[in-house]
Structures are given as structure tokens and as C-alpha cells.
């Protein structure tokens, strides 16, 4: 556990981790950012918090009167 490890052991652990990470493959931000934007655009049409929900369909909007479950 991290609390029981000495500083040297923690440093060794971090060092091994960094050595592995330097080898990871990466893609340019221009490509990944574009893909994120496209994904959001595609999904945004269905997002109730963005497009809003008509009063009678939203179970959380106040209706007054009785709620039949």
C-alpha cells in the first residue's frame, strides 16, 4: 500500500510507470478533438438537458395535482 512504501520504493514505481508510458502511441489533438466534436454533435439532438423536454413528458417538472405512478 502506498502509505507503507518508503520514498525510494515509490520513486521506483513511478520510474517504471514512466518508462512504460513513454512508449504509448498517441494521436494528434486536431484529429481527436474533431472526433469528440462530431460525436457530441451527433448525440446532442437526443440530450434532454440541451434540447429541453416538453412539460407534460418530464416526470420532474412540477405539475400540481396528482401524480399517478
Amino acid at each position, binding site marked *: *500500500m*502506498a*502509505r*507503507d*512504501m*518508503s*520514498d*525510494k*520504493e*515509490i*520513486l*521506483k*514505481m*513511478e*520510474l517504471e*510507470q*514512466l*518508462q*512504460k*508510458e*513513454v512508449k*504509448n502511441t*498517441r*494521436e*494528434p*489533438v*486536431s*484529429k*481527436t*478533438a*474533431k*472526433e*469528440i*466534436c462530431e*460525436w*457530441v*454533435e451527433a*448525440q*446532442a439532438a*437526443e*440530450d*434532454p*438537458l*440541451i434540447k429541453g*423536454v416538453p412539460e407534460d413528458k*418530464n*416526470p*420532474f*417538472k*412540477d405539475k400540481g395535482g396528482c*401524480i399517478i*405512478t
Partner: protein
Amino acid sequence: MCDQTFLAITFGPCDNCSQNKPLMNIYLKNEPINYCSLCVELMACQGLAKGETTNTLKAESESLKAKLEEERAKLHDVELHQVAEKIDALGQFVMKTRRTLKGHGNKVLCMDWCRDKRRIVSSSQDGKVIVWDAYTTNKEHAVTMPCTWVMACAYAPSGCAVACGGLDNKCSVYPLSLDKNENLAAKKKSVAMHTNYLSSCSFTNSDMQILTSSGDGTCALWDVESGQLLQSFHGHSADVLSLDLAPSETGNTFVSGGCDKKANVWDMRSGQNVQSFETHESDINNVKYYPSGDAFATGSDDATCRLYDLRADREVAIYSKDSIIFGASSVDFSLSGRLLFAGYNDYTINVWDVLKGTRVAILFGHENRVSTVRVSPDGTAFCSGSWDNTLRIWA
């Protein structure tokens, strides 16, 4: 979060050199032993090759970090908000508190939605775990835990059980029964055992496995039925405060964030730390995967929330304002990932436009720190829990 910690010192014969000295209680291969501080140092040095000192290790570490940053910077050719310029800005936001759930006797620390989109489980400092019906605000079940500060709670995917834990260092699963008179505490099943407080827990895709994170610096995957440890994840150098599983379609990974300012991405099957990000300036309180699974957001005590892209392997956005000086305790995305809801220690919830990096709304209502924020499974509302003992549903 914790006010004070006291170190109790035991004095007596060391297990190694047999001299009477102040002892350090440590765990070797999960066995508690008492060594004096000199023997602990000697033992730590044995693990190193000749010529390795703390300084050489640190120097190598720094140079590798610099190399990593260089590799990442090469691919940083554009900013996310620049790519997002062509996208339409969001309209005016009108979000109000629709329901207030009152009933906890003390600070609400954590909450989770059920997949049926209407039930909520919440846990608080007084040891109570309550299951609510969010449409009617009725309490359906209440369990009293034997410990205070129940910092983690989660709903099982089937909706038939809840898991919770905190200062008792364990994660316990309670099956929920339809019979209101049944004593839930009698059916409790202890699943996880850590050596420090439980900070976060989450069921995987089934009711059969639970992932936990703890103040002892590790995360662990457990089998619910047998209580067996299936995999443990070592790599954080301080308390792990939060974890989140990747959305089911994208594979077997999860992200964790902790007091060492690092956010780590792990492979659940191998236990390996796949990627690590260290750009925050203070403890990371909460981590949340992006709905597409290609990124994740973090909320931190340095008053910023940040978005990290997993394929580009770097931070791509910072959500901050000079006027926000209190830490962000909790973050969650809307269904499409366009909005980021973040709860802060200044009692407010800020809503950010993820792509453009701007704030679209600020929500007031809670009378104390907002400790947890979660969007409902169908995205129609989100719920916030606070140290003012209430939960609020916003839509």
C-alpha cells in the same frame, strides 16, 4: 477532509534487530510487523541496485517526465475550443430545483442513480444510507451503517442491491427487498477490505463485481458472492479519492484520481496502469469518463476542472475562472457530453460548455458545500448532494 490525524507510537523490541526503539507498524506481504525506523530504511535500500540513491532515481524520473511531455507536446497542434468554434453556441439555460430530498441528519457525501432513472441511493456522515424515489420524494429504504462518514455508495445495475462504505474500511452490499418491514442490516454482505477508508465504489456491468478505491492508495476489484479480491491496482502514491468505469461499449478500463494530483487509467484485466496524467495543482476529488469513452474529466481542489483526451494522451481543456477559488468536489457529463456539471465547495454548481470551455450557467440553492453531482441515466435531470443535508433534483 480529515481534520487531524494522530500518529500513535509504540515502543518496544524491533522484530528484526531486537533493540528497544520506537517502532513503525508496517505491512509486509499483508502481515503486520513492527520494525524500528533503522531497519525499515535498511530494508528499503535492499530493494535497490548498487549505486541507486533517491537522487539518481529522482533525476531519472524527472528526465523521463520531460521526455513524456515533449512527446505529448509534439501532437498538441490545436486547442479543443478552436476546433469547436464552428459549433453553435448553446442557448440560455433555465434549470431549477424540481425536488428537494430532505431526511438525512447530516452531510450528504455521495449519491447514485438506479438504472430505472427514478430511484436514488444516498449516504451521509451520520452513517445512514437512504434509497429515495426521486419522482415522489418518498424514502423507500433506510439502512444505518455501523460507521460514520459513509463516503461511497452505489446502486447495482439490476436495482436489487446497494453497496456502501466509508470509515469502516469496507464495502458492504445490501440486497434491497420489497418488504418494507424487513431489516436490511441483517442481510448485509461485507465484500471489500482495505487498510484505510473507502473513498469510492462502483459495480461493474453486473451485480457480481465491485470496483473500490481507498485512502490506502489502491483500487481493487472484488467478487461480490465470495468476497474474493480479483485484482488490485497499485500506482498512486497517496489516497485515491475517486474512480469511474469506462462506458460499457469501450472496453475494460477505469480511471482513478487521488491526492497525489494524478489521474491514472487502468486495464481491469491485467491490473496495469496504462496512462497517467499529472497536470492538476492539487488533490483530484472526482473523475468521470466522457460518454464516448475517449476522454475523461476531473474536478480538483485547485478550483479547476480539466478534460483529458485518452487518444491524444494529454489535457485538452481547463474549465476555470478567476472568480472561482473553491475546489470542485464532483463532476458529471450530460448525455451527449456537451455539458459538464461541476459542484464546488462555494455551495454552487457551475455548468460548463465542454467544447468551447465557457461557463453557461451557475446554479445556486445549496446552503453548504456541494459534495456530489450525478446526471440521471436517461439524461433528463441531475441530482446534487450537499453538506446542507439535502439532495436537489434539477431539470
